């Protein structure tokens, strides 16, 4: 049985990076789009306040909803990141399984 550890490690790393590289741009686009929207919404609330169209109490409630929206978006980004890492780890594990089965010349795992 010959298992080239360095070779397998390199292939696992490639699989891991490949998955992350594939997923990260999607997360980045989503994060950028939402950040822009949230900034625009904050400006809307500020304008309403400066124009006297909302009271302090109304502004406070609007900002609470704004804050919740920001936090929800950040949580989504966190979750998307976790899924990307999970898929990357599973891709790397898949490479390891294939390497072991190939070296043993039968599907041990």
């Amino acid at each position: 049985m010959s298992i080239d550890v360095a070779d397998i490690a390199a292939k696992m790393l490639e699989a891991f990076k490949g998955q992350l590289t594939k997923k990260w741009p999607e997360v980045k686009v989503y994060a950028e789009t939402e950040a822009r929207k949230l900034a625009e919404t904050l400006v809307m609330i500020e304008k309403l306040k400066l124009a006297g169209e909302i009271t302090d109490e109304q502004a406070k409630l609007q900002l609470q909803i704004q804050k919740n929206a920001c936090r929800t978006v950040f949580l989504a980004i966190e979750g998307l990141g976790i899924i990307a890492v999970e898929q990357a780890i599973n891709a790397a594990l898949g490479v390891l399984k294939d390497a072991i089965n190939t070296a043993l010349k039968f599907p041990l795992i």
Partner: protein
Amino acid sequence: MKKNIILYLKSCRHLFVILVVLSIISGCSVMMISDYDEKTDTAVTELQKQVETFFVTVESQVGLPECKYEDHKSFYQDSKIAISAIEVRARALPKNEITIKMVGLLNDSLNSLEELHKLGCLTPGHIAPLRSNFNSSFTAILKLELAKKRGDG
């Protein structure tokens, strides 16, 4: 004799480590976050429709007596029931902490919306940022839920 026993114990330890590694690998895959839940997806989408219907209705009632909070109590009651059901289901699923937090924040936003409406009728100026923030919240929850399909997200 003693040397042979030590060598034997070392090889047993190596074998044990190999067996542990193989069993971890053969456990197939790692799952760090819950699976996709269609009922959560459907319920959140439905709640988004209810909230948007509310905003559209209130926008059409600007300046009219029906714009008052008292005329929209049923929306707040229905949305509280809906969000409670979503939260209960989210808590029942394993490794679903992030979605639970997101639903909790949405619940808080709905409560804040209710408090805001009690202060007076909502104007188009009020509704624009509200709609945007609520849609961001709904999109975030659904985006994560769809991503849990692993590959479709």
